[in-house]
C-alpha cells in the first residue's frame, strides 16, 4: 500500500536505476553497520512523541527558541538514558532532534564542556565540570566582540588583576568591546567562558580565558555589573539566542581564570604557558565538521531539487507530447547534476579530513606532529572552498525549483539560512584561503631554494624540474585524457602549480617594488586566493578519484566514476581560462570537455533520483514538501498552506480594521 502511494514519476525513476542505493548509502556512512546504527538512532528520535511539534515555519522566533530549549533539555537527558556517548552518534541524535538546526545548548556541549576539560585545572574541574555536566551550570564561549571577529588579538575586553582582593575585574571598555554573537548567551546561559586581555602588575599579557558567572542561580536574573541579552533577529538561527554581554567592573575570584597552562599567582606574578600545539588540532577538527556539513547541506538541497524536478512537468519538449519532467531539460540537468557530483565529492573530502585528523591525533599523543601544519593549512582552504561552493549550490538548487522553491515549504530557504554563516564562522573564508596561501607560498619558497616538500603540495617539486625542461609544458598538453579521472587529476595539479607559481612571482614583484611585506601581501591577495582555490580544487578531484578504487560494487563504481568525471570536467569547463592560459589544455580539448559534460548529464540522468535517495535523508529531517520521498508534492503543499498563521481565521482581522472602513469612506 505504501508503494502504491508513491508518485508514479518517482516510482519509474527508482525502477530505472542501474545500482542499489543502499550500497552507496553504506559507503557514505562508512559501512553497513554504521548505516544500521544511524537508522536505529534516527528511529529512537522520530518515534519519540516528546520530540514532536508543530511545523517550525509557522512559529514566531520566541516560540522556536522555546521549542528548541524544550527539546534540548530532553535530548541531554535521553542521550544519557540511552547511553549514547560516541561523538558521531551524539551528533546524529542531536541532528535528528533538531532537524539539522542549531540549538541553544550547542555551545555548552560543544565548547564550554570541552574547554573545561582541556584548559581547566583539576581544582576548576571539580568546581565546574560536574555542575555543568548536570546542567546546573549552563555555559557558553564568549570570544567575538561587536567590533572584532577574526583578528583575535584585537579583542578589547579586559581582565585586570587586583592582588588586594585576589580578584579579576572584568570590563567592556567600549561599545565595540561588547561580546556579541555567542550562541546561548542571550537567554540560556548562566556562565560564560570569556576571552579577555589580561592585565597584571600593570602589563598586558594578551588573551586569556575566564569563567564568568553572568546570571543568578535560582532566579536567572543577570548579576549586578552584567548586561546581557539577545542580539535580535537574524537571517536564520531562530532557535539560537545569540547574545551580547557587557561587563562593568565585574569581579571574579582569581581561581576563575582557566589556569592549566598560563597562570596568575596570588601576588599577580604571571606564569607563561608552555607552548600548546593542541589548539591546532581543535581547529582542524571543527573545520572537518564544516566540510562534512557543506556536503550534507548541499546533499539535502540536491535531494529536494532533484526529486521535485522529477515530479514537476512543464512546457513542451516535443510538439504534441505531454509536458515533460523538468529534469529532462538539459539546462535543468546542467544546474543540478554538477551540484550532485559536488555533494559526493565533498562527502569524501570530509571523511578524508576526519580520518586524517584521527590518525594524526594518535600521533599527537606520541609526539609526531610533522603533518599537523600541512593539515591545518589545507583544512583552512577546504573549509572555505567547500562552504562557498555549497552556499552557492544550495541557492542554485532553490532557484532550480522555480517559484515553489521560494516558499518555506520547500525547505531550501531554511537549509540556506542555516548553512550560510559557516562561510563566516570558525574563520572568515577569505582569511582562511589566505592562510592556505601562506602555506603554499612557504612551500614554494622551500622548493625554489632547493628543498623538497611533501604531502599534497609535493607537485611544487615538479616546478623546478620544469624550468630545466621547458618543453614539458607542451608535452603535457596532449597527454590529458578527458575520459580518465587520473589524467584529470594531473591537469588540476598543473593548474594549481601554475597559479601558485604566478601568485608567488607577483608577490615577489611587489616586494621588489620595495613595498613592506604586508603591503605586498595585500596587493597580491586576489592572486593568492585564486592559488589556494586551485590547490583545494586539485585536492578534491584527487580525493574523489582515489575513492573510486575503494568501491567494490561494479554498478556503484560506474555511477561514482561518472559523477567524478562530471565533477572534474565541469570544473575545467567553468575555469577554462586557467587551463587555456597555462597551456594545459587546447581550445579543441576545451570544446571536447564542454561536449563531454553534456554527454555525462544524459548518462547520469537515469540514476539521478537513486543518487539522491542514497543520501538517505528521512522526510522529517529533510523538512521539505517538495522533496518528499513519496513525491506527493501538490496535495501536501495545500495541506501545509492551510496551517499558515494568516489562515487562522477565515476573515482576517485586517478586514474589519482597515479594509471595511476604507470601503465605507470611498
Amino acid at each position, binding site marked *: 500500500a505504501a508503494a502504491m502511494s508513491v508518485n508514479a514519476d518517482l516510482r519509474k525513476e527508482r525502477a530505472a536505476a542501474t545500482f542499489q542505493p543502499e550500497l552507496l548509502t553504506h559507503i557514505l556512512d562508512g559501512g553497513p553497520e554504521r548505516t544500521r546504527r544511524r537508522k536505529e538512532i534516527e528511529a529512537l528520535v522520530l518515534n519519540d512523541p516528546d520530540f514532536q511539534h508543530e511545523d517550525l*515555519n*509557522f512559529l514566531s*522566533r520566541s516560540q522556536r*527558541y*522555546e521549542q528548541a530549549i*524544550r527539546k534540548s*533539555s530532553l535530548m541531554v*537527558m535521553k542521550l544519557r538514558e540511552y547511553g549514547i556517548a560516541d561523538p558521531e552518534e551524539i551528533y546524529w541524535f542531536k541532528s535528528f532532534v533538531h532537524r539539522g538546526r542549531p540549538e541553544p545548548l550547542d555551545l555548552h556541549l560543544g565548547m564550554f564542556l570541552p574547554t573545561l576539560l582541556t584548559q581547566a585545572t583539576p581544582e576548576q574541574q571539580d568546581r565546574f565540570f560536574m555542575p555543568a555536566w548536570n*546542567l546546573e551550570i*549552563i555555559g557558553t564561549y564568549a570570544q567575538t566582540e*561587536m*567590533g*572584532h571577529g577574526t583578528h583575535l588579538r*584585537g579583542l578589547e575586553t579586559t581582565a585586570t588583576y587586583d592582588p588586594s582582593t585576589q580578584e579579576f575585574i572584568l570590563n567592556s571598555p567600549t*561599545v565595540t568591546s561588547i561580546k*556579541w554573537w555567542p550562541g546561548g548567551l*542571550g*537567554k*540560556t546561559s*548562566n556562565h560564560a567562558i570569556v576571552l579577555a586581555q589580561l592585565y597584571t602588575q600593570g602589563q598586558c599579557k594578551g588573551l586569556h580565558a575566564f569563567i564568568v558567572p553572568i546570571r543568578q542561580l535560582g532566579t*536567572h536574573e543577570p548579576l549586578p555589573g552584567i548586561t546581557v541579552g539577545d542580539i*535580535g*533577529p*537574524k537571517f536564520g538561527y531562530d532557535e539560537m539566542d545569540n547574545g*551580547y554581554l557587557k561587563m562593568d567592573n565585574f569581579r571574579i575570584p582569581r581561581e576563575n581564570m582557566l589556569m592549566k597552562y598560563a597562570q596568575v599567582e596570588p601576588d599577580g606574578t604571571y606564569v607563561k604557558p608552555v607552548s600548546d600545539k593542541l589548539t591546532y588540532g581543535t581547529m582542524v577538527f571543527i573545520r572537518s565538521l564544516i566540510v562534512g556539513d557543506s556536503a550534507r547541506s548541499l546533499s539535502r538541497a540536491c535531494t529536494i531539487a532533484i526529486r521535485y524536478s522529477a515530479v*514537476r512537468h*512543464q512546457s513542451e*519538449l*516535443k510538439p504534441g507530447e505531454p509536458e515533460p519532467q523538468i529534469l*529532462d*531539460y*538539459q539546462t535543468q540537468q546542467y544546474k543540478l547534476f554538477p551540484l550532485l557530483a559536488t555533494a559526493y565529492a565533498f562527502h569524501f573530502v570530509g571523511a578524508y579530513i576526519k580520518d586524517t585528523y584521527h590518525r594524526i591525533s594518535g600521533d599527537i599523543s606520541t609526539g609526531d606532529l610533522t603533518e599537523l601544519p600541512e593539515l591545518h593549512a589545507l583544512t583552512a582552504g577546504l573549509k572555505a572552498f567547500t562552504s562557498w561552493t555549497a552556499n552557492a549550490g544550495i*541557492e542554485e538548487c532553490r*532557484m532550480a525549483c522555480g*517559484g515553489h522553491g521560494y516558499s518555506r*515549504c520547500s525547505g531550501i*530557504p531554511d537549509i540556506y539560512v542555516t548553512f550560510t554563516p559557516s562561510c*563566516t564562522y570558525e574563520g572568515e573564508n577569505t582569511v582562511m584561503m*589566505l592562510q592556505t596561501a601562506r602555506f603554499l607560498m612557504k612551500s614554494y619558497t622551500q622548493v625554489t631554494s632547493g628543498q623538497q616538500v611533501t604531502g599534497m603540495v609535493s607537485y611544487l617539486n615538479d616546478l623546478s624540474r620544469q624550468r630545466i625542461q621547458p618543453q614539458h609544458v607542451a608535452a603535457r598538453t596532449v597527454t590529458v585524457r578527458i575520459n580518465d579521472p587520473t589524467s584529470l587529476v594531473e591537469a588540476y595539479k598543473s593548474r594549481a602549480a601554475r597559479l601558485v607559481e604566478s601568485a608567488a612571482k607577483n608577490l615577489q614583484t611587489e616586494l621588489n617594488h620595495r613595498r*613592506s611585506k604586508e*603591503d605586498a601581501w595585500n596587493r597580491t*591577495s586576489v592572486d593568492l586566493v585564486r592559488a589556494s582555490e586551485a590547490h583545494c580544487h586539485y585536492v578534491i578531484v584527487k580525493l574523489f578519484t582515489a575513492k573510486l578504487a575503494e568501491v567494490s560494487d561494479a554498478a556503484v563504481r560506474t555511477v561514482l566514476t561518472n559523477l567524478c568525471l562530471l565533477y572534474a570536467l565541469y570544473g575545467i569547463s567553468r575555469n*577554462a*581560462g*586557467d587551463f*587555456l592560459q597555462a597551456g594545459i589544455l587546447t*581550445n579543441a580539448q576545451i570544446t571536447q570537455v564542454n561536449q563531454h559534460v553534456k554527454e555525462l548529464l544524459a548518462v547520469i540522468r537515469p540514476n539521478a533520483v537513486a543518487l539522491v535517495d542514497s543520501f538517505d535523508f528521512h522526510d522529517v529531517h529533510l523538512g521539505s514538501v517538495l522533496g518528499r520521498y513519496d513525491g506527493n508534492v*501538490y496535495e501536501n503543499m*495545500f495541506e*501545509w*498552506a492551510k496551517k*499558515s498563521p*494568516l*489562515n487562522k481565521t*477565515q476573515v*482576517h482581522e*485586517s478586514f474589519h480594521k482597515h*479594509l471595511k472602513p*476604507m470601503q465605507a469612506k*470611498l
Partner: protein
Amino acid sequence: SVNPDLASERQTASFSVEKLTTLLDGGVEQTRMRRMVVEAIESDPVFSRENQYFQTQNERYEAAVRKAVHLQKKMHEMGWTENGPEYKYIYRALSGDIAFLLHRIFMRSISVLGSDKQIAKWIPLATQHKLIGSYAQTELGHGTYLQGLETTAVFDAATQEFILNTPKISAMKWWPGDMGRSATHTVVFAQLYIHGKCYGIHPFIVQIRSLQDHSLCPGVTAGDIGPKMNFEHIDNGYLLLKNVRIPRENMLSKFCEVRPDGTYVRQGSQKINYFTMTTVRISLISDEVLTPLMKACTIAIRYSVVRRQSKLKPGEQEAKILDYQTQQEKLLPQLATAYAFHFINDYLQELLNRGYREIQRKNFDMLPELHALSSGFKAVITQHSTAGVEICLRACGGHGYSLLSGLPSLYTKILASCIYEGENTILLLQTARFLIKCFMAVSAGQPVPPSVTYLAAVKPGKCPAKNKVDFLSPDVYTEAYQHVAVRLISSTAAKLQDLIQSGVKKHDAWNHCTVQLVQAAKAHCHYIAVKNFAETVEKLETKAGIQKIMKHLCDLFALHGIFSNTGAFLHDGYTSAAQMDMVTASYLDLLAVIRKDAVPLVDAFDFTDKSLNSALGSYDGQVYQRLYEWAQKSPTNQMSPAYERYLKPLLHNTLSKL
C-alpha cells in the same frame, strides 16, 4: 556626529556627489521631486518601517494593508495622482512595503485586455477601491508555460454564464499576491470551453469574496499560501473554484469574445500583449532590482570603512576592511555593476518609449528586438544583481547575517525577481532564439534590427592590446566582448544546424544546445551592457569629475567581466595568455583607484537612513551604537516563558535522571 572613519572618506571625493545624484535621477527637478516625496512619506509615522524586523507574518500583513489604505489618504492630501510625476517615487519611498500591488496589475489587465464597456464598468470601481483586485495566472502545477494551465471555464449558453472549475489539485491557483486575504475580485486565466471545444487560455473577472462581510463566495476556497523567504507583508494566495458561475460579460473581451449563442470571435492584434509583457519586465528593473543592489552596496561599503580588522602594517591601527584587496574585489565590482545596469536601464526605457510610439503608429517591427532585449536583460540584470546583493551580505561578515543589517531582507526580496515575470533560463532561451534567427538572417544577407547588426561585421583577428593600459581603452574591451558574443552565437548556430542535418529532430537539437544557447544570450547582453556603458561615459559632461569616475567604473565593469570569465576570452586565441595577465593587472590597479571614491559613489545613490533601515549602513556610520540599541528592542529580550517552563527545571536539576 559622523564617525570620523566615514567622514574622512567623504573629504577626498574626486567628483561632485550632488551632480552625480542629479545624473542618476535624470535632472535637478527629478532629484528635488524625489526628495520631496521621500520626505513626505518618511515623516509620516504610519509608513514607518522601524520595527519591521521584529514583526510576525500577521503583523507585517496588517501593517501593509494599513499603509495601503493610508496611502490613498496621503495622496489626496498631497495632491498626487496615479498619473502624476510624483507617483513613481512613492514606491521607492515605501521600499515596496505596502499591500495591494496586484490591485494595480488587476486594473492594468482590464485596461489592456478588456473591452471599452468593461473598462468603463470596472476601472472606476477599482480606482475607488470599492473592490480589491488580484491577478490569478500561475497554478500549483504550472508557471511559465501558459498553455499548460488547467483551470477551466465552460460556457453555458442557457444561462449566459461561464462555469469555472479547478479540476484537480495541480490546477489550483497559487502565488497570486493580495489574493490570500485581501482581494474581492481576481482575473482568472482559464481554458475556455464552448460546446465541448477548447479555445485555449482566456482571462475572466471572478468575484471571490463578499463585498459586505468579506466572506468567501459560494464555490470558492481561498487562503494564504504560507510563509516565504520574504514578502511576509503580501498575502500570496491559493484559489480553488468549484462550479463558480460568472456572467458572460466577465470574460475580458478586447481580443476574443464569446457571443450569446456561443460563437467565438477573435478581433484585433494580440501583439500589444507582448508589448505589455516587455513593459512589465523593464519596469521592474529599477525598483525591484537596481534599488536593492544599490542599497546593499551602500550598506556594505559604508560598513567596510567603519569596520576595522587586523593590521596591514605592524604597529599601526587595525585597518579598515575596505583597504584589503580581497574586500575591494568583492564589493567594487558590484558597485560598478549597479552603475552599468542603471545606464542599461535608461537605454531599455528609451527603446521602450520608441517602441511605444511606433506601436501607436501601428508599426510592430520593433517588437521582436524589444522582446529579446527585455527578456535577456531581465534575466541578466536580476541574476547579477541578486548575486551582487548576496556578495555584499557575506562581505559584512557576522553582522551581515543579522536582520538588523538590512541585508538579509534585501537579498530574499531581490532573489524573487529571478523567478517572477518569466523564469530566467527560459527568458535567456527566448533571447537566444531571436539571436539564432538574426544570425541566420545575417548569414543570408538579410537586414536585422540595430542591436544585432554586429553579427554581420564579424572580424576575425586578435586583440590588439600591447600593454595593460591598452585594456583601459573602451574600444579594446568592447571589441573583445563583441568577439565572444559573435563566437558563441555563431558556434551554437552551427552546432544546431549540424545536429539537424545529421537527422536529429529540431526540438531535440534545440534541447541539446540549450546550455550553449544560454551562454550565447548572456554574452550578447553582457556585450550590449559594456558597449552602452562606454557610450554613455563618452557623452557625459567632463566637469565636476563625473566623466572621469564613470570611466573608471566602466573599465572596472568590463575588466571584471573578463577576469571572471577568462575562458571565453582565451578560447580560439582572440586574447593571448600574456594579454590575460595584462587584464588582471589593470583590473587590480583599478580597484585601488576606485577604492578612494567608494563612499562618495554610494552616497550618490542618495538613500535616506530610513529607507536603508540598516544598523550597519547609516550615513553617520555609528554602526555599533545602533546595533546595540536596536538589539535591545528585540521581542526576544522581553521576558520569555521559556525560562519558567524549561530552563528553571533544567537548571534546578528537577529533570529526572540527569
